[in-house]
């Protein structure tokens, strides 16, 4: 199989340190991965190409790059599946993190955020002599998260991190969930309330915009966004509702359950809190712009037709009948 690797290169030591594209034609065996192709370039053509790689089997998390614009492991992607109709595979370094050289990025921001969630088990009770008793289901559920290999693909393509570097991000939040969902962590009921409190702060679980990009790109099926949503459920169940994110979720549900659709004005007021005048005033420019463009939501929010059906649905969701 003949393919052309189109690689985004960067050498900070060159005279003009800017990134540039370079193309390498390579001959590959049928089952070759994109990593095999990159290694072939490095070993046989151009040893100056820098990339991280090690295990070749999707377990060490070293070789996350962007392939044709989307983050993933080079060792997991077959070259035959990555080529376009002209036989070209586009390889770039992962996003969000600063490039050090070629396909190598600086993972410091990534690890700093992992550290921020205090990523180690913190049981409150006394340690048992033998193992902690726990259901196999609970451990299998956690294994779905601990199978994260910290490759950074989710962080690379996170649309929030792209604009807000303070966001904890999908990898660190999934890591946090690995503890909050662990029956051994936290109090005797397995509730990790202190963790959830911290994670409810600004830059935490409520800053995810649910774009699903991290779920798409994760090579291990960890589904970080789903874990973030589960964190939100845990936080609200633990009574951590005094924050914009939680109020927003509640107001959203209430509005739809009541009128069948979203009351955007009320949503704003309820999210920041009706008494929070400074925050509400902060929305004034947005409101004025919306008004000028005829996009202001109606002041009087009417229910949709046949709203009774929606209300019944909402009641059922709130209080499901036993099976």
């Amino acid at each position, binding site marked *: 199989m003949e393919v052309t690797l189109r690689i985004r290169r960067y050498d900070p030591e060159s005279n003009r340190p800017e990134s540039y594209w370079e193309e390498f034609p390579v001959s590959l065996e049928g089952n070759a991965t994109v990593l095999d192709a990159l290694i072939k370039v490095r070993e046989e053509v151009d040893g100056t190409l820098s990339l991280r790689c090690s295990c070749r089997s999707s377990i060490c*998390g070293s070789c996350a790059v962007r392939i044709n614009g989307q983050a993933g492991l080079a060792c997991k992607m077959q070259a035959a599946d990555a080529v376009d109709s002209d036989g070209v595979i586009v390889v770039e370094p992962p996003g969000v993190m600063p490039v050090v050289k070629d396909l*190598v990025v600086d993972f410091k921001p990534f690890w700093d955020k992992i550290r921020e969630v205090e990523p180690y088990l913190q049981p409150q009770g006394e340690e048992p002599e033998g193992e902690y008793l726990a259901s196999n289901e609970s451990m299998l559920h956690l294994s779905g998260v601990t199978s994260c290999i910290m490759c950074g693909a989710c962080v690379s393509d996170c649309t929030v991190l792209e604009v807000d570097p303070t966001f904890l991000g999908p990898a660190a939040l999934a890591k946090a969930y690995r503890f909050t969902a662990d029956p051994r962590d936290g109090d005797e009921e397995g509730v990790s309330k202190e963790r959830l409190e911290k994670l409810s702060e600004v830059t935490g679980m409520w800053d995810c915009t649910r774009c699903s990009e991290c779920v798409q790109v994760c090579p291990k099926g960890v589904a970080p966004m789903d874990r973030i949503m589960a964190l939100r459920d845990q936080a609200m169940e633990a009574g951590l509702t005094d924050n914009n994110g939680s109020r927003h979720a509640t107001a959203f549900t209430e509005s739809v359950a009541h009128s069948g659709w979203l009351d955007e004005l009320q949503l704003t007021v309820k999210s920041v809190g009706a008494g929070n005048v400074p925050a509400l005033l902060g929305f004034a420019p947005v409101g004025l712009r919306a008004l000028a463009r005829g996009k202001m939501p109606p002041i009087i929010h009417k229910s949709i037709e046949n709203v009774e059906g929606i209300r019944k649905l909402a009641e059922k969701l709130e209080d499901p009948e036993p099976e």
Partner: protein
Amino acid sequence: MLEHDVLVIGAGLAGMRAAIAAKAGGADTAIISKVHPVRSHSNAAQGGINAALIDRGDNWEDHAYDTVKGSDFLGDQDAIEVMCQSAGTSLIDMEHMGVTFNRDDAGRLGTRAFGGQRRARTFFVGDFTGQAMLHVMFEQLIKSGVRSYEEWFVTGLIQEDGQVCGVTALEIRTGQVYAIRAKTVIFCTGGLGRVFEPSTNALIVTGDGIALAYNAGARLMDMEMVQYHPTTLAGSGVLISEAARGEGAYLLDKNGDRFMEKYAPNMMELASRDVVSRAEQTEINAGNDVDGCVLLDCRHLGAELIQEKLSQIREIGIDLIGIDMVKQPIPIRPGMHYIMGGIKTDVDGLTNLPGVYAAGECACVSVHGGNRLGANSLLDTIVFGERSGNHAAQAAREIEYVDFDVDGVVDRERERIQDMLDRPNNDDRVASVRLGMGQSMNANLAVYRNQAGMQETLGDLDELRERYSKVPVDNKGRVFNTDLVFALELGFMLDCAQTIAVSALDRQDSRGAQSRTDFPNRDDENWMKHVVVTKGEGGPDISYLPVTVTQWTPEERKY
């Protein structure tokens, strides 16, 4: 000046366990690794970790006997006793740290069967036990506050009057060379798999620590004992876990027959690894193969069990050769996987060099002897990692830092590296030298060996070392120069390759992983001893150490 009481080289399971123990023991501790800790190769251990838990009706002597028998009676029984006695505590420690082990119906740790053992005592997390443990150990490393030099490559040991007193290291990110002073050094650098091509091992597994220690005068032991794993994937040689057979998978020849009946009628597919690999190779050589492979059949296990317990290897089959093991058998063959030998240590990890320790795959205690049982390697890392960390921390209290000419040491190392970068282009390539080594080793030091073949490889290695001394490095830059790192690693690998070949050639019997067609039998009278190799004036020197026998008299192995 960078200096630490205890400097751990390598941040896999053994290294991090050692560092955490040393720090807990009150020592100023640092860990240095050429990759970030979670990229380490402990990740690749799939199947599980062995421990005999008393409350399951198991006992450590049974585990120890299985290990001794698995080692083909070459393992040192005192060391094996230490490992198996500590196993339960070490396992429970890992559970308390947070490892998400699979459970049984009562919510206790669940087990699976594994090769060479008479009962199920392998504890596991799906088929990614190593990764699950490595990440938890990294969590504990963060908690411990150990100083971590990540992506720093150790290029040499600093010695004054024979005393190891620090290391030189290349900060890969910047290309700067540093000296780090240390009272004690613990090698936890893992194996040397890439000396062979193909190998199940990750690309970073290049025997750095084994070669560094050897060049500093450490004794290497059992280096001829190279484990070929029975189930490595056709093509890339990536590992397919023994867990598949532990869960009940069959090995089939081209006619669909379970050929293990002929070789191990009782244990069948779960005989020890050396026995299964030899059986496969015998069948392949006899023409009962499918394109150089035999087949691993998991279909009867069912999709549900495969998804719960073998999901990672299923994924590997689909990703790398396009075969879903739920629907089709996968082609596998024996492939280089593990080195039983390594830097000779006592049960506290101490080598023959004062202040120098080793633990994990780079070490040889020797608990694996001629053949390691599956799921004993994870155990080895945490038991002897912890012991060496404890001992080094204590020893460091009695040791003073040794003064050396820091600038001179750094300048000399920088010059040595610069000389490599300045070599003129001669159209040779680092990768080509490495491939030559790997193929020669795989041709002549694999499952079956003989004198002529091994001598051929020793000749090849002489030529390759000559080429290595002149091979150019493409990348002349400083920042993240992986080309330079590969070139330095290749030097370590060539040293390791030679120690393997000379040890294997010296041992004139067949035992454990070493099967010589010219000496096909185990010869306890003459070869019930460890082959030791040290660096001499003109090359490797061979000597011998006795095997320690405590309670199990050597007998013929049958599975």
